[in-house]
């Protein structure tokens, strides 16, 4: 499920949107993307802006609030809560796997 990229400074990320969060992205759960190269490493703050500009066209308020994700969305980096990884300041590595989960309330 990983996309490997060898290009220098290009990062391959996999975004998964689960728990209804994918509905903001045309119902597509898994996005494999290559971020444009830049001199500084990408951090999560920049990634959220990039997602908003490139993947999310409609109703950004359902995904972001301020410069972070809106309440009720949990962010995971490589299957760990992003709180353990430095949240917005986390610097992305090649082949990182980022998941956005919206909490479910049904039952």
């Amino acid at each position, binding site marked *: 499920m990983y996309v490997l990229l060898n290009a220098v400074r290009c990062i391959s990320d996999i975004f998964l949107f689960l728990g209804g969060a994918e509905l903001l992205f045309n119902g597509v759960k898994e996005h494999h993307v290559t971020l444009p190269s830049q001199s500084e490493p990408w951090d999560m703050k920049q990634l959220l802006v990039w997602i908003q500009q490139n993947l999310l066209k409609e109703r950004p308020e359902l995904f972001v609030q301020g410069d972070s994700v809106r309440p009720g969305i949990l962010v995971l980096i490589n299957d*760990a809560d992003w709180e353990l990884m430095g949240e917005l300041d986390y610097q992305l590595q090649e082949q990182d796997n980022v998941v956005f989960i*919206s909490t479910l309330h049904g*039952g």
Partner: protein
Amino acid sequence: RAAMAQDMCSLKAQLEEKEKEIAALRSKLAQLEKSHTSALELHDQVTPLTPVKTKLSLSNEDIMRYSRQLLLPELGVQGQLNLSKTSVLIVGCGGLGCPLAQYLAAAGIGRLGLLDYDEVELSNLHRQVLHGEENQGQAKALSAACAVRRLNSTVECIPYHLQLSSENALQLIQQYPQPTSVTQTNNVPTRYLVNDACVLSGKPLVSASALRMEGQLVVYNYHGGPCYRCLYPTPPPPETVINCSDGGVLGVVPGIMGCFQALEILKIASGQGSSCGQQLVIFDAQSARFRSIKLRSKQAGCAVCGENPSVTKLVDYESFCGSTATDKCRKLNLLSRDQRITVQDYKAIIDNAEPHVLLDVRPLVEVDICHLPFSLNIPLSSLEERKLEHVRLLQDRISQLKEQLAGDCRPPVYVICKLGNDSQKAVQVLEKMSGSEMDSITVKDICGGLMAWAKRIDPTFPQY
């Protein structure tokens, strides 16, 4: 021929006799069932409970009943005795609560509190598998308690038919000394309420949820792990919360998650402990995959379980979350009165054969369930995105209508959906488009949508 007639006569007589016999048996059964249920007292308020009886050893019957799990070294006799001492409160006897209660009772838990303020409806039965057709209209808590008792009469069941609130939650949860398991209901305020009550009374909270084809499970407030507020300090905006009656759910998905809750509770109650204290389990039914996610630990700055908590007693959760503590759909009110018509008004429009366009803005999957024969379907999302083929389709219908209408009036478009929320949003979108992105139209919302149509105008129209 005469012989045949005689045969038929005698068969009919026999049938009649058998039918009488069946009726007698039915009433006998009903009486028995009634006396059986009446022993289960439905509580509509929180009353003090006596402590769960402590068993010092297993009876021969216990040994036979639980033999297959007693053989597990992970459980053993001590684990089984621990289960029999445990009381668990289940909040919500729905899609999660049913299998949860079933497996806890089957495994020999000591006491089960079953709380639900709702009654059994036909649309519950695909996932709430403890209830049967004959339980429709009955309190869910009682129906679940009866089913549990049929399975294991040695488990003490206490059905509560009440709404959990800031006034009664602590009192209730404190009566369940061992792990309070909570299967949560659909609404956000109740989740915060139950979380805070569990933190304030020092109980782990085994929480799960399910929607569409996905499930999630976490054990909150357990062995240094986070509470619900540590993960979600701020409630989500109400418009982002989707419940089962809006989003749909495949019954087996909450079934799997409810069984998962039962597993974790049995591990905690028997003494093995749960490994989900700092872990979120996500189940993706579509790809049949489980993901385990390592969560943050208990947060020092948490408002309820942190070092300097600001929440020291239960608060008003409805105002905290900006939404009501029910699982029912929210009613939006986006339009003025002259932008809306009633289903009766719309019936008159059809009866008078007034030319118009009826626009159904539900998703295709719902239109497949039922629709009015003359409606045009364009989902709200397509309107919001201004999908070209859909805008064209609508423009074509409006042009046709214009030809029918004399003069240069604005053709009327009536918008309908299931309950009358999305249709209001669609009216707002169409008003923006009218006169610029397409011909000018007069657009109105049909209040209450197709469900109001089914209730007030056409009782043969399906409800879902």
